[in-house]
């Protein structure tokens, strides 16, 4: 059995070595007309892919076995402990308090550098949460999401240039403009489903970016817009570090607001309609839900949060250009939602922080980070498709003990 496994991995690694031979071993430079042979890489691939294949096969086998119910004593015990911890009120409250304290104290304990990284990460938390409404709840794959983010930042930058619009007023206006764009995009999307829908949203995202890039008289073209004012409190003089702290708290408040809206939405009539549409469009329609209306809502609501986050982005970086809003950014936000677990709020927050913070702290491996990022996406989807923290569906728990007083519980 073990011998079979080792042999199988050997074949796999030999195959991969042959396959990657031209790209890994030979490097042809047609500028200087040189050919470099790097035989060291051959050994690297051979050993690396052997180990990788062993682990991969083992994990696949384990996953298949894991589908049977776990009867391990230890795992049952852990489950029980988890259940008691998550159900006891004091535990919940103290956990929440600890998180709140950490969130509040963070800007006072860390450096400016840490904080500016955190600010960017928080913007992606908000983007992730916004897209979570469209994809996680509504099941609509939006590959042009970053365009709404762009709409938000450009509406602040342009309105500020034109009429000197204040940051605080721009926040809702950015959201509103994004909402309008969201509705415009939603109209042709309504008739489409699945992959067609995804590719149309992708097309819209790209069109908006290219138009911004080429409409130089309005948007400054590829060189973008400079010296956008940072957020300020009237009458208070803020230095750079204070402003970063301010942005941090703005983002925390906005993220909390997004979470609140999502939570309330999930339990509302619209939210339930969204989830029904995600599960089965035809069944949903036959239950009397107006699919058209629900789709527009899913799209537009997601867009609003991106627009608001965009305003903060423009104010935080003080410089925007179309290069910050490429398709890859949309893909990144999509990955945040899927990695975290579609529909799961803690999952999305966690994934946004991991995906945005990890590359910053792994600067030493910056060359390899995109390589690792790609591999992580594949591995996650194969072994943990529900995301890091899968969504927990609301359900009712009945035991003999409390059957008398029907108690609703969020498990």
């Amino acid at each position, binding site marked *: 059995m073990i011998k079979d496994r080792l042999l199988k991995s050997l074949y796999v690694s030999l*195959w*991969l070595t*042959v*396959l*990657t031979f*031209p*790209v*890994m071993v*030979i*490097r*042809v*430079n*047609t*500028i200087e007309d040189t*050919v470099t042979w790097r035989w060291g*890489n051959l050994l690297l691939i051979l050993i690396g892919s052997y180990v990788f294949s062993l682990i991969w096969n083992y994990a*696949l086998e384990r996953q298949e076995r894991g589908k049977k119910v776990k009867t391990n004593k230890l795992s049952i015990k852990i489950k029980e402990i988890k259940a008691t911890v998550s159900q006891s009120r004091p535990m919940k409250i103290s956990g929440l308090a600890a998180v709140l304290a950490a969130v509040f104290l963070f800007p006072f304990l860390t450096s400016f550098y840490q904080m500016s990284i955190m600010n960017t990460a928080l913007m992606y938390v908000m983007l992730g949460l916004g897209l979570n409404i469209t*994809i996680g709840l509504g099941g609509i*794959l939006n590959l042009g999401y970053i365009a709404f983010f762009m709409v938000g930042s450009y509406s602040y930058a342009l309105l500020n240039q034109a009429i000197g619009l204040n940051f605080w007023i721009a926040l809702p206006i950015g959201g509103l403009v994004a909402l309008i764009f969201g509705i415009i995009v939603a109209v*042709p999307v309504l*008739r*489409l*489903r*699945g*992959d*067609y829908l*995804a*590719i*149309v949203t*992708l*097309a*819209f995202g*790209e*069109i908006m970016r*290219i*138009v911004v890039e*080429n409409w130089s008289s309005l948007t400054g073209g590829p060189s973008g817009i400079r010296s956008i004012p940072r957020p300020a409190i009237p009458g208070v003089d803020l230095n750079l570090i204070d402003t970063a702290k301010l942005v941090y708290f703005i983002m925390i408040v906005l993220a909390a607001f997004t979470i609140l809206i999502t939570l309330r939405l999930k339990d509302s009539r619209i939210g339930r309609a969204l989830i029904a549409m995600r599960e*089965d*469009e*035809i069944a949903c329609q036959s239950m009397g839900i107006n699919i058209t209306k629900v789709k527009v809502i899913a799209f537009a609501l997601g867009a609003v949060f991106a627009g608001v986050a965009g305003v903060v982005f423009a104010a935080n970086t003080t410089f925007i250009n179309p290069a910050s809003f490429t*398709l890859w950014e949309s*893909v990144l936000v*999509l*990955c945040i939602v*899927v990695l975290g677990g*579609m529909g799961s709020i803690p999952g999305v927050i966690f994934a946004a922080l991991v995906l945005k913070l990890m590359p910053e702290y792994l600067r030493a491996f910056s*060359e*390899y980070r*995109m*390589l690792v*990022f*790609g*591999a*992580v*996406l*594949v591995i*996650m*989807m*194969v072994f943990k*498709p529900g995301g890091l923290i899968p969504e927990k569906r609301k359900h009712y728990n009945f035991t003999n003990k409390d059957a008398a007083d029907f108690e609703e519980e969020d498990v």
Partner: protein
Amino acid sequence: MGFDYFFKLFIGGLTKGSIYALIAIGYTMVYGIIGLINFAHGEVYMIGAFTALIVAGILSVLNLPMFAVLMIAVVIAMIFSAGYGFTLEKIAYKPLRNAPRLSALISAIGMSIFLQNYVLLAQTSNFLPYPDMIPDFAFLEPIKQTLRTTQLIILVVTAIVMILLTLLIKFTKIGKAMRATSQDRVMAMLTGVNVNRVISVTFVIGSSIAALGGVLICSHTGRTHFYIGFLVGIKAFVAAVLGGIGSIPGAVLGSFVLGFTESFGAGYISSDYEDVFAFVILILILTFRPDGILGKSTKQKA
């Protein structure tokens, strides 16, 4: 802006269309059989171009005739790209065959990012001049400005590939198995079709055609880069959707529609908005004909 200009744009559109067609076929075949957008397909095309570049680089010391170098480079590039297509299906798609569509899509995007950066790290981030492997035909000398040799070769090769592929799918046993699998995978399995093999063959054929496209296009543009696969990949996918994804004649038709739109749009309106024309026509066609030009107008399943 006379007839010559129009003819030049026409040839340009035809070339572009053939390029997209060579890549779009891979997309549409894979989609037809497993219902998955193979995002990494553009990367396979890029790897094909790189492999041919490497092979040509090694062979250049042997002083072989140009034609022999081209042939060897193309064949090796096709074999290796087919290998990549085969392997990436086994790693990134096969375990996800029964998973939700979105998971498979994310996995494909991950594979695409991985392959791009793999070539970036193992080779170079620079634009490399592509070896001039296709000699100029003497008889095209007078009209060199409108029709270049590489363009003519791309057109001819695309036509030959189309015909061979149609014959393969219509008349061979594996073609029959492919059609059966795309109609109903479970039923095909019940009638004794080895579905795994059919899927592998699809990936192998699609990838090797993409590699052929890669070599021809890089010879035409004269340079290559690790990022070339991405945008062309997206455009080819747009072409496949335009024509009605899953249908091979549709992919070819969609590619030509896209090629002409881009060429004439850039030539007569503005070259800055070249990419916008492609996307606008996509939105228009999908809004009025959601299943594409040649798509089956059956209701899509969610």
